[in-house]
């Protein structure tokens, strides 16, 4: 197990380097730092001095990959690539364009993101699995058909509609909760309840249908027939046998997103004014702050890899036959 984990973590390093190279190429090779400086300064005719100044301030005044002027190891370390990437591997993301520490921002903004994403995830899982089990229980009846039709309809509606419609109905028409905003502590409940409900409803269609397919795959198996032959009730078969055996495909799709919950949701957070990582990313995109976008890309892929490793570990917990080696 330990050896397996070490190997997986070592395998993650080349992938993270690849991610870094990719974003680096996107940001600095396609467009030179001069182009970026011109964009940031935003004026048509910018003097060369202003550009140099900006580059120096933000640490872009070095060669891209190889510094021929330096000697020894500095040939590689005294470059933009090294300066902007090496720190990321020890989770030091440097500074955003407005001079704040990105790492600190990430730590403080993680809370609000989680306050929305975690309950959405948990309640969502419960709702979707229950709904899917219901459809499986009533499979091949009018109820099942209606359920599937509802799912297809719900998944054909744009996610933006759920948010805008929900805000309009609940906050503007009924005045139940504030339209947007956030406050820490116990008071935050009234701010997060609507985003959570909308988040759950937003993916009820696609998710429930997915779980239903998984359950229907399982229900044709021999062990289900055996369980029925023993005289177990259909409900018991579903909950005791099918649900347990469907864990592997469910975990494959579910565990991998758990670490990504830290990143929050771009849309929800920006619509509801939640000061989380999602709205941080959107702000950075709109302000064209490349350091922040790169940091979020790195963090995202790091969390994704953690999710993959967690998935493998979770297999061993639900299926005793799986051994990691």
């Amino acid at each position: 197990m330990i050896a397996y984990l070490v190997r997986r973590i070592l395998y993650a390093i080349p992938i993270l380097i690849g991610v870094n190279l990719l974003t680096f190429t996107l940001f600095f090779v396609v467009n030179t730092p001069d182009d970026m400086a011109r964009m940031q300064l935003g004026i048509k005719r910018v003097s060369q001095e202003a550009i140099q100044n900006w580059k120096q301030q933000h640490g872009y005044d070095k060669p891209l990959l190889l510094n021929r002027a330096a000697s020894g190891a500095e040939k590689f370390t005294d470059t933009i690539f090294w300066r902007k990437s090496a720190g990321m591997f020890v989770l030091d993301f440097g500074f955003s364009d407005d001079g704040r520490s990105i790492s600190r921002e990430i730590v403080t903004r993680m809370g609000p993101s989680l306050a929305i994403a975690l309950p959405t995830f948990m309640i969502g899982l419960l709702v979707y699995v229950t709904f899917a089990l219901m459809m499986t229980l009533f499979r091949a009846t009018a109820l099942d058909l209606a359920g599937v039709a509802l799912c297809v309809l719900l998944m054909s509606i744009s996610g933006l509609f759920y948010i805008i419609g929900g805000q309009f109905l609940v906050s503007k028409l009924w005045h139940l909760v504030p339209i947007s905003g956030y406050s820490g502590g116990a008071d935050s409940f009234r701010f997060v309840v609507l985003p959570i409900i909308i988040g759950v409803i937003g993916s009820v269609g696609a998710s429930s249908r997915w779980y239903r397919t998984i359950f229907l795959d399982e229900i044709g198996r021999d062990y289900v027939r055996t369980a029925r032959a023993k005289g177990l009730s259909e409900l018991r078969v579903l909950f005791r046998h099918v649900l347990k055996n469907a864990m592997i495909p469910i975990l494959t799709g579910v565990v991998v997103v758990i670490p990504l919950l830290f990143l929050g949701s771009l849309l929800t957070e920006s619509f509801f004014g939640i000061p989380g990582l999602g709205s941080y990313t959107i702000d950075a995109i709109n302000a064209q702050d490349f350091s922040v976008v790169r940091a979020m890309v790195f963090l995202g892929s790091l969390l994704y890899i953690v999710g993959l490793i967690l998935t493998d570990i979770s297999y061993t917990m639900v299926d005793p036959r799986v051994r990691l080696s």
Partner: protein
Amino acid sequence: MSFMPEILWSDGLIFLLLAAAGTGAWYVRRHEHLLLPWRRLARSATAMVSLLVLSLFLAIGLLDSLHYRAALPQQNSGETVYSPEVLSAFDKLIEPLRTHTEKTYSAPLAITLYAKESTTDTQGNVVRDYPRLQYGGAHLAEASQRGVDVVQRAVIGAAAGLMVGLLIALGSKRCLTRRNLPFRALFIAILIIASLIGLIANLAAAYHVLGTDKVGQDVLYLSLKSIRTGLVIGTVTTLVTLPLALFLGIAAGYLRGWVDDVIQYIYTVLSSIPSVLLIAAAVLMMQVTIDTHPEWFETTASRADLRLVFLCLILGVTSWTGLCRLLRGETLKLREMEYIQAAQSFGVSTLRILTRHIVPNVMHIILIALVMDFSALVLAEAVLSYVGVGVDPSMISFGTMINAARLEMGREPMVWWALAAAFAFMLVLVLAANLFADAVRDAFDPRSNLSE
């Protein structure tokens, strides 16, 4: 009036895709075993009705892809000067919708503007009232006639549409029943669609059926124009995903060894980045490049269009990994089959094995994946445009419509029509695509029940 045809990048790609689809259809028609799943698909009522809706959208999108630039009236003798405004055949067809712009917002079917304005009447007094629209209901003398007129026009339009629909449906009956198509469902669908079109067309001749937006443009016009953008995003993207996923997936699965390692590494790197972030990063870069090279573009339309094509490219590069993984898995399974081993022992070259034996046997996976992706891409466009990394702000799309209308949420009374129109059109398009995709999956998936 003379004109100069203008082929934008996306137009070329769309017609390329159309030609490819046509060639594919011609090839399938000549091979009985390939026709089998299509026949199964043709028997499904949902599939055919959603296909009917989709082809209607497609027809609009294709008409909207025939672009031209009209010649300007001659000022001084010499060479003809063409307008910098790029129009399409569809624009010409619905010209009144495009040119009849009001001053600002007006509600659906309204005859007055949405906000009061101060005007001076004939006696010189300043009156604050809702001003009449320039085009919407301009034929009415009294505001009170509106209700009757609207109903009258709606009924006449729907009836005319119904008649035309009836003619089309009955005229095509023999053709449909001979091919085992579900005639009853199609009959009802044609009638409903035809009367709906008749109703809207007749009303649109005198009113703004879906109201007007902030700068007074007809919302119906905007919605119809958005269809093309959605279709381009949903289809042109496959031009990128398909070759990448096909070549890399099959190469990884068949050749294995270091090729497999390299390809797996590439797609793990790509799929480990949250897709919205990767798209945002790529689009930001494209924006910088486009902004620093204004000299590349003759018209705003060509700039917006190039941005759209790049967006498709980026979406394609970020979304081929899923299909690639599926193809790799299937190829790994196929290469252990006896008939592949037989081919190998006969000394058939690798390239020939791949093209003759592997590719035809993974075709169903590709088709299912592409159809399934379409609706996701149409929905993604709206989200990306909201985030600010979607299509060019000057390009009419569902995303830009929603984005513009969203800012008016706070107004009292609310300006809801542009939002509602964008969401409704999107829902119809995506729902039809989803239902069609489901039917395609059922018809082509070998695991699905074949004994019917």
